[in-house]
């Protein structure tokens, strides 16, 4: 994560702009250990815990993608359940009808998600801000209604994913686990790279002003399109994983608005526009769900209320609040100006946005 992007001399002082600090290199080391731990987990973690982690990782991947859309392209979608549902049904189609191995079918699901996202983007991008959000919801409803009305897909009562059911249990659970882990890592890496890129910085500064974006040479429409398609493919992929995981697909569940509600709440509570935010949000979600499950749907209401409180009183989310206080980022997205003077001590100044070097 060593990323000195430029270094210029100014008088007798030298500036160099860094994205990462030395602490972050330590973090990188720890991160690799964590990733290895997660990869090996199914061998020692036991089936119930591994199953639970599939849920955890799926939600984390989805939240990260939603975060990418909002944090990177200013797109606010409440229709991601459409892609999740289509991913689940595509998996069923490839696995049970076309007899492709389910773990290969997942890839086809991602493609279908991307293919659906393209014309969808062309339609909903005609709407602005909040109305765009409802537009994505309409498209999700359309997909759900179509699927629920096709007899061959089992209609409203759904279908069993036979190919997944007939798989050996340990293989199925490990396979879904690694797919979920892979999806999460890809989502995190893609989000990190995009948020940190030049376009990412420019977009952050001028997100809500189309004119300013265009004049900075950022093709906002195309950037939004790419992001929308990436998110669509990713959500379909996770939907396919969940179909293998629960062995059953049904329109009411696969296309449920609650999917999107989880993503929004998790991301908002954790912190929009950061990679750590959705991770913290997903942990909070799981802690709430596991500790209050016996009280029924209350945890969901509590989660919603928490998201409301955070939105109004601490819009940067829990992680944003912590980061602001400590100026510490596990995944540093903003750049730091390091003054390398003649004195040995180097000073770090955090600076928002790109244009720091003199």
């Amino acid at each position, binding site marked *: 994560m060593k990323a000195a992007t430029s270094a210029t001399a100014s008088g007798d002082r030298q500036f160099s702009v860094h994205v990462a600090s030395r602490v972050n290199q330590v973090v990188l080391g720890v991160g690799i250990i964590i990733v290895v731990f997660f990869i090996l987990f199914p061998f020692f973690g036991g089936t119930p815990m591994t199953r639970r982690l599939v849920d955890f990782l799926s939600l984390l991947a989805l939240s990260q993608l939603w975060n990418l859309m909002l944090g990177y392209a200013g797109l*606010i979608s409440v229709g991601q359940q459409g892609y999740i549902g289509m991913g689940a049904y595509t998996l069923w189609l490839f696995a049970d009808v076309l007899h492709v191995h389910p773990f290969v079918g997942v890839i086809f699901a991602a493609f279908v998600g991307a293919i659906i996202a393209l014309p969808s983007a062309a339609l909903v991008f005609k709407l602005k801000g909040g109305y765009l959000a409802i537009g994505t919801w309409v498209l999700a409803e359309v997909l759900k209604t179509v699927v629920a009305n096709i007899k061959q897909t089992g209609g409203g009562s759904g279908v069993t994913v036979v190919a997944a059911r007939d798989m050996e249990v340990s293989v199925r659970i490990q396979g879904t686990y690694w797919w979920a882990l892979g999806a999460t890592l890809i989502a995190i890496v893609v989000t990190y790279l995009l948020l940190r890129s030049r376009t990412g910085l420019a977009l952050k500064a001028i997100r809500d002003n189309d004119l300013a974006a265009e004049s900075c040479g950022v093709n906002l429409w195309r950037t939004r399109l790419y992001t929308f398609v990436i998110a669509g493919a990713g959500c379909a992929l996770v939907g396919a994983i969940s179909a293998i995981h629960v062995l059953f697909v049904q329109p009411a569940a696969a296309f449920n608005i609650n999917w999107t509600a989880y993503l929004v709440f998790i991301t*908002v509570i954790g912190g929009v526009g950061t990679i750590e935010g959705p991770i913290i949000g997903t942990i909070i979600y799981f802690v709430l769900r596991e500790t209050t499950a016996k009280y029924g749907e209350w945890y969901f209401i509590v989660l919603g209320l928490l998201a*409301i409180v955070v939105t109004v009183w601490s819009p940067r989310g829990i992680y944003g609040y912590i980061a602001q206080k400590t100026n510490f980022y596990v995944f540093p997205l903003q750049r730091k100006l390091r003054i390398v003077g003649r004195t040995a001590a180097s000073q770090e100044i955090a600076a928002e946005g790109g244009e720091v070097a003199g």
Partner: protein
Amino acid sequence: MDWLNQGVQGILLGGHFALFAVGLALVFGTMRLVNLAHGDLTIVPAYVALLMINAIHFSPFYSIPITMAIMFVVGYLLQRGLLNRVVQSGDVVGVILTFGISIVIQNALLLGFTADNERLKAGTIDSLSIRINENLAIGWLPLIIFLVALVVIIGLQLFLNRTKMGRAFRAVSDDQEAARLMGINTKHIWAMAMGVALVIVAIGGVMRGIRTTFDPSFGSLSLIYAFEAVIIGGMGSGWGTLLGGIILGLSQTLGARAFGPPWSILTGHVVFLIILALRPQGLLAKTVTS
């Protein structure tokens, strides 16, 4: 199931959609807030009426004025206490906040009333109809709802154009900072706008409860229908919203006639998407003023 009959039913249904849509449009117009909880707020009055009817056993029609008053207070306080804080924070924050409220309302209703279907029983009125000929009968209830929608839209136009408060709504809509400098308390105006929107929603919500069964999950589709009517008609025009509602209603009933009842809602969505693709500003959009 004659085409003409389905057409008439579609127009009447469109009036009902318009009743939900004008509230959404009013809130967007005065404060640029897209209220994703609007759909769920159309379900709340039906449950309020249900509680009243269960407690004192009177006609659901009598519950309408009381529900209107309750919903006004709910809207005013919701806006003043919570939503006013984000009106000036951009539309993303508004969407997230109202989406959160939407999910909380829906799940709170599920906890309080379960997912069972409910109905506001109004006696014989829901089965009475005017028989025009063999194939065409107009139900009294859909007709009444349509006329109420008409009265509400005309009333709202008169309110906005002829009263001092209505002028203040429009001034705030045009330029909220200039409105404040003219002595208008924008926080109060926004809260009034939400109150008025929910009064209209109360009428539509209770009427729907009399007409059909409902459950807590109805909110999502109510929001989507209202939204589709607003976009089809063109934002910021009361008559456009009515037209949008009618086109949506017609699409649904004629779609049911042409492709079978399961495809009715989908036909509505598709017509909406076609209009969005071809004329995103809506059919009766006002010319853009600088």
